[in-house]
């Protein structure tokens, strides 16, 4: 391996960020971005498990057409808390707050993020928000749906709406501060020689994500405040009985919450760009197009929120504009898929665990994308809006896309983060289980949706039971696929083989330093004099 970057590899025997202090205080008051990433990793894993338990309750209830396992109100609480926990406390922080936090300073050759203390503050805000969430879960729950639609949430619901909204509100600031930290770090702290054109695509994806976090999250924060004011003090914003407009809430809510979908998926796309190049042992195809498509998604993503509202009573003409822009935003996503595929062409491909997950991502995200095109078509929404077709679509993007990308990245950088190698065979078994279980869970839901099964239904007509049973069986396999990594990854921390600095022969600054990295990341200042993804030995400037 030719080290094209000038760093002095220190002996791995020295103190690393994990061995630099063992006290609880050394963790809870740390300003080391790597330790904060680990704190996030532990916290989001707990919330992912919690959200999974809620999902299991939903799937079990739907085994039979009658609402017989729990009453309707409990069921409504289960799907609501599944959504709230998974979106606000798992998906949004997942890759940026863990892998992004750990890797971005290292990838740009810096000692830490621009504002280490603010980074710690982000984690505490996330935890405070999460505590609101846990309080709600144990104190009776919430049943408005994660979308908090008014006037149901602001006037009619008897559940813990304000506490939940406060949780999302506070966690939002965590997201804003992380975005701010990344933007400043990427602008100001790149090592000499690390030009914008040499930034790993993982960093580009996080840059685009951070822009959305910074510009979008304040809007949902304001919206939630308005909703809470209406609920607590009967100040009319959204309830027509108080002179408000319920559709206004949906505009404000989706103005953030659609871009939030890209907050969730873009960092995952960044992971895939790193993994596909490494396991194809080949420079990336169309670097500028992949980087540019992240920015295009971030910008266009702000102008498509109305596609959630074709049937909601927004102007039919506004719908036309939203539909057109939504079709346009499909293009940059497709560009990424094609470029990753082209990167594999004439590569030297190994299908290890991270690559297995990445290939699963490409397949499932493609299905999520093309079904998104269907839902962008206004006429199809007349039939499909608020059915299981939509449920299946966003789970293909969020789980098939984002969660698989997270698993891919987690395995890819696990040796770097922990200094240990996980058992490869179990990694592959779980990746295959996740892929199969996922398809079994969510493919039947496309069929259910086209048959007309509305979402958020506690009971349903008998003719749909077979598909629901298939979905629940698939969910059990999927759950097993997620429990396994929790076991073998934890096992590897204690019993795993020690990892070398670069176990996968990957390129990038993080692989030039020991695993796990020392607290200061780089023993000496870094100078980058190598192009990004310098895997290949033969340069072919253009294919055509």
């Amino acid at each position: 391996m030719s080290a094209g970057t000038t760093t002095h590899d220190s002996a791995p025997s020295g103190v690393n960020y994990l061995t630099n202090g063992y006290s609880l205080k050394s963790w809870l008051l740390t300003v080391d971005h790597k330790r904060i990433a680990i704190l996030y990793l532990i916290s989001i894993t707990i919330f992912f498990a919690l959200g999974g338990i809620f999902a299991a309750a939903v799937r079990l209830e739907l085994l039979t057409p009658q609402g017989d396992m729990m009453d309707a109100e409990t069921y409504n609480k289960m799907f609501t808390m599944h959504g709230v926990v998974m979106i606000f406390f798992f998906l949004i922080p997942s890759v940026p707050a863990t892998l992004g936090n750990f890797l971005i300073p290292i990838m740009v050759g810096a000692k830490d993020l621009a504002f280490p203390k603010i980074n710690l503050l982000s984690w505490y805000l996330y935890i405070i928000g999460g505590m609101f969430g846990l309080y709600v879960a144990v104190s009776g729950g919430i049943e408005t749906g994660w979308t908090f639609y008014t006037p149901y949430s602001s006037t009619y619901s008897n559940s813990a709406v304000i506490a939940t909204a406060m949780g999302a509100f506070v966690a939002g600031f965590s997201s804003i501060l992380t975005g701010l930290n990344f933007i400043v770090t990427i602008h100001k702290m790149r090592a000499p020689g690390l030009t914008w054109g040499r930034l790993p695509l993982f960093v580009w994806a996080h840059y685009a994500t951070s822009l959305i976090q910074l510009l979008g999250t304040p809007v949902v924060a304001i919206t939630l405040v308005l909703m809470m004011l209406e609920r607590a003090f009967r100040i009319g914003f959204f309830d027509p009985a108080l002179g408000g407009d319920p559709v206004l809430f949906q505009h404000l809510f989706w103005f953030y919450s659609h871009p939030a979908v890209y907050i969730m998926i873009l960092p995952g796309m960044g992971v895939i760009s790193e993994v596909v190049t490494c396991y194809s042992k080949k420079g990336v195809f169309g670097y500028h197009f992949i980087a540019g498509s992240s920015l295009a998604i971030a910008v266009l993503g702000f102008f498509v929120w109305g596609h959630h509202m074709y049937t909601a009573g927004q102007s039919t003409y506004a719908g036309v504009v939203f539909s057109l822009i939504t079709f346009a935003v499909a293009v940059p996503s497709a560009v990424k898929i094609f470029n990753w595929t082209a990167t594999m062409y004439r590569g030297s491909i190994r299908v290890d665990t991270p690559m297995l997950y990445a290939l699963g991502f490409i397949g499932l995200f493609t299905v999520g994308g093309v079904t998104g095109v269907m839902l962008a078509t206004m006429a199809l929404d007349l039939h499909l809006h608020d059915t299981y077709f939509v449920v299946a679509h966003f789970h293909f993007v969020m789980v098939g896309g984002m969660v698989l990308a997270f698993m891919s990245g987690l395995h890819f950088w696990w040796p770097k983060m922990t200094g240990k190698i996980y058992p490869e065979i179990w990694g592959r078994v779980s990746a295959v289980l996740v892929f199969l279980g996922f398809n079994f869970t969510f493919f039947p839901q496309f069929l259910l949706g086209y048959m007309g099964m509305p979402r958020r239904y506690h009971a349903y007509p008998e003719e749909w039971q077979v598909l629901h049973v298939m979905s629940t069986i698939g969910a059990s396999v999927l759950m097993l696929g997620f429990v396994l990594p929790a076991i073998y990854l934890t096992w590897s921390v204690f019993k795993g083989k020690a990892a070398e600095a670069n176990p996968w022969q990957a390129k990038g600054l993080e692989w030039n330093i020991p695993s796990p990295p020392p607290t200061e990341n780089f023993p000496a200042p870094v100078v980058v004099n190598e192009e990004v993804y310098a895997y290949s030995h033969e340069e072919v400037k253009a294919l055509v």
Partner: protein
Amino acid sequence: MNEKTLPLLPESASNLSPQIDALMMAELGFSVFFSILIFVLVTVFAIKFRRKSDYDVTPHIHGSLILELGWSLLPFAMILGFFVWGTTVYFKAYAIQPNDAMEIFVTGKQWMWKVQHPEGPREINELHVPVGRALKFTMISEDVIHSYYIPAFRLKRDVLPGRYTTMYVTPTKVGKFHLFCAEYCGTQHSGMIGTVYVQEQSDYEKWVAGGDESMSARGEALFGQYGCVTCHLPDGKGRGPSLVGVYNSNVKLQGGNLVKADDAYLRESILNPRAKVVDTYQSIMPTFQGQISEEGLLQIIAYIKSLEKEEGGQQ
């Protein structure tokens, strides 16, 4: 029809159903083509270019502008076709009112659907309509947002509190079909369901004849009961403007603006009379907010509409 050969499709029972199914099939073809293309390429590459040794040498192919433009613009051009097609069908359902559409008035409330037919019959969680006749749904909610969804018609629209929404469809097949609430509306959301009965015209007429007073007759009774009649004299000499012939006419407001006296305007003028006051009249009408149910409001509007017809006949 198609649904026999495609058992995974719901029944097709409206003018919109075959159009939406055709569009869906076209997009499905497009989707399957691109998904299979990607699956095959990824799988073939993963096998054909598998790593033979750790010393494999790979070329760095930086990219290709032609390929990038090709795989951006070609699919985009194809989906623009779906955009135009989809928009056309959407407008048929929401924006283009068919001639002589039969009116259906829907009121949603937690957790039931109430329907009024202008001729009189009222029903709960059921809907009776004749086959082959264009329908106009005018819908409003008493409380939270609901959504009136008939999968066999491939049609839904949200039912909002405080404002009417409308949609148009023509049933094409006699039978019994599911009716759902598609917008989450609280505890018994999944119980806010019912049955749509599409009947032969003659059966429908028999069914309608079983109903009692017409909507406008009920509206006339309310018009008297709430004292509207004391000011809105038909000859225009009362303290309020005459409502004869006002429906769908252009009304001149204080300040000179014109407003079309449609359902939305009439409803607003009953609940919030000071919002748009008719020119030359004083703003003295009290609000009826919270006193008349949404169903009652629809009946009063139906009565005002009927005044137009009688007047037209007399002149």
